[in-house]
């Protein structure tokens, strides 16, 4: 059941009620994955570190929905959401990777920060802030040289927008009119560094003018709003009009990574943003009751539980294979 107002809004965009539910489910799947990841970590069943995207689910789903299956994705360290939202992604293979298993996307070699599935044009998360941006230029060149109408989406954080890599990449994409969506998830912090301290401007998107491209800021917790600006940017890119810089304003609920006392922000601030929660917001927009929403969310949780079972039943990598995969 979708509310009439919502239906109209969806129809304008060519989104069916079913698709809307899928989008919602995807956000719930992301939320569930992240919650489970945190739990597994706390239980000591996963090592290393992780960067949770709880609170940012609308960004991931809004962007991926605006892209087509054969477009490209370049993702960040906080990449579980974008990865799960991507075409053909399997929570099983993701969870197995997170748990370091041989069945994982990267055979347990990559882990949380490096999940990739090149077969589906998911070119991977990246442990280096800004690290995927120069790579996006090359993906854009491939598309241009092959003369396909594909698009590449390069995701990065507000912190990423202050790296030299950002500057070189966006400039190159601009002067060559490459079909790239530079999608900045401004979640207000780069680790402990507040956006306001690291930038002397109001919006990351203000930087678009430095490259002669279009920049737009969107409420990153509003699924359809993100979708809309992404759709526009994608269309521009497909028309050969070059890159767009999108700033999706959102917030990370959890600490930066596994160990973060969060001394740099207040509980009130976190709470304020939690009220702008994207999942409930979209469910409400669709006219779902709490029960309906909860039922769907339970489905998502169930799916993630299955992925844990899958992973637990998966073998560890064999030490005998340790030298594999360095060279082709």
């Amino acid at each position, binding site marked *: 059941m979708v509310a009439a107002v919502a239906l109209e809004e969806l129809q304008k965009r060519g989104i069916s009620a079913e698709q809307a539910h899928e989008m919602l489910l995807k956000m719930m799947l992301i939320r569930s994955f992240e919650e489970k990841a945190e739990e597994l970590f706390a239980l000591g069943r996963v*090592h*290393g*570190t992780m960067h949770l995207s709880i609170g940012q689910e609308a960004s991931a789903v809004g962007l991926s929905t605006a892209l087509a299956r054969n477009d490209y994705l370049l993702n960040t360290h906080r990449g579980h959401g974008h990865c799960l939202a991507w075409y053909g992604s399997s929570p099983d293979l993701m969870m197995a990777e997170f748990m*370091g*298993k041989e069945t994982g996307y*990267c055979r*347990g*070699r*990559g*882990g*949380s*920060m*490096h999940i990739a599935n090149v077969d589906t044009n998911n070119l991977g998360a*990246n*442990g*280096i*802030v*800004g*690290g995927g941006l120069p790579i996006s230029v090359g993906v854009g060149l491939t598309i241009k040289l092959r003369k396909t109408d594909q698009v590449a989406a390069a995701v990065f954080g507000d*912190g*990423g927008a*202050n*790296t*030299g*890599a950002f500057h070189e990449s966006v400039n190159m994409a601009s002067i060559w009119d490459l079909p790239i969506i530079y999608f900045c998830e401004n979640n207000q912090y*780069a*680790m*402990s*560094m507040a956006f306001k*301290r*690291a*930038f002397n401007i109001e919006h990351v998107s203000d930087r678009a003018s430095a490259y002669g491209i279009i920049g737009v800021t969107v409420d990153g917790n509003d699924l359809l709003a993100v979708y809309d600006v992404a759709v526009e940017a994608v269309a521009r890119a497909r028309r050969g009009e070059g890159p767009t810089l999108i700033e999706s304003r959102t917030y990370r609920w959890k600490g930066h990574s596994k160990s*973060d*006392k969060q*001394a*740099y922000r207040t509980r009130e601030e976190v709470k304020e943003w939690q009220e702008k929660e994207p999942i409930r917001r979209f469910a409400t927009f669709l006219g779902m009751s709490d029960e309906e929403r909860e039922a769907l969310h339970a489905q998502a949780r169930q799916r993630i539980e299955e992925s844990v079972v899958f992973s637990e039943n998966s073998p*560890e*990598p064999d*030490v005998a294979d*340790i*030298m594999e995969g*360095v060279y082709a």
Partner: protein
Amino acid sequence: MPEQNGHPNGAARELTVVEALREALNQIMAIDERVFVIGEDVGVYGGAFGVSAGLVQAYGADRVIDTPISEAGIAGACIGAALTGMRPVGEIQFMDFVTISMEQLVLQAAKIRFMFGGKATVPMVLRTPAGSGTGAAAQHSESLENWFVHVPGLKVVMPSNAYDAKGLLLSAIQDDNPVIFVEHKLLYKTKAHVPEEMYTIPLSKTNVARQGKHLTVIATSVMVQRALQAADILAGEGIELEVIDPRTLMPLDDAPIIESVIKTGKAMVVHEAVKTGGFGGEIVARIMESEAFGYLEAPVRRVAGLDIPIPYNRTLEMNTVPQVQNIVDEARKLVKGEY
């Protein structure tokens, strides 16, 4: 400030490496206004590994500077400040990210003095945590010290314990050259006796960490601790390792190494970094080119990281770099004449 080189006796106040480094920063900042700290999250967050915790409260945000994610900028900020009379201590959050600072460190910091005819100094320290063992995978586990060893003009320091960490950091800050100060993550929580007063351990002074007569083991950073553990184990078998810790890799004080090899007739180098192209080759060559060559009773062996990126999976990760058992096995073989 007294210069110390042996571990003093007396009441054993134990500190972790993190605490020792923090104390060094605290003490020098209190007396030298030229010293400031700069890097990502070094302020309220206290640094990714907590080394600078409390400093911003003590010395203010002007002297404990949180930066944007701009590793080239951090390095440059240190260079420019050093060139104009300050003594900056920069932090690169993980050694992997020095890859973004290389132009500034190698083409600027290291060369400015020489290029300017010896008429300028760049007294800066760049601290950075290195190494694997934390499940952080290939882009957060690098051990790149030999890159810097290969760059004249830079000094490269790698402490292996809390006592050295404090004394070496104080020396590095007071040195008039750019110093790359490499801290191993797995050492951060290890403890040692650390005197409360300020003291320095001279740079380019190799330390004999344990005396022995059967085999010289030259180890760096966390591998010094593993070599010492291996030595304990082998002592039970009557095999006595001499464990040598260069502490400063460049410029290298190689005399104690040579002397030791002359004494033992056998040597082994242990480092975590990838074996090929690593610091181990330098040590082997130094021994080869020295008087010690004539005393060698067996080939010098390298025990080092596999030639692969650091894998995420915990078991694979452990198997990528030397563990105590690997050192024990290799040392035993060497001593028993199996090479």
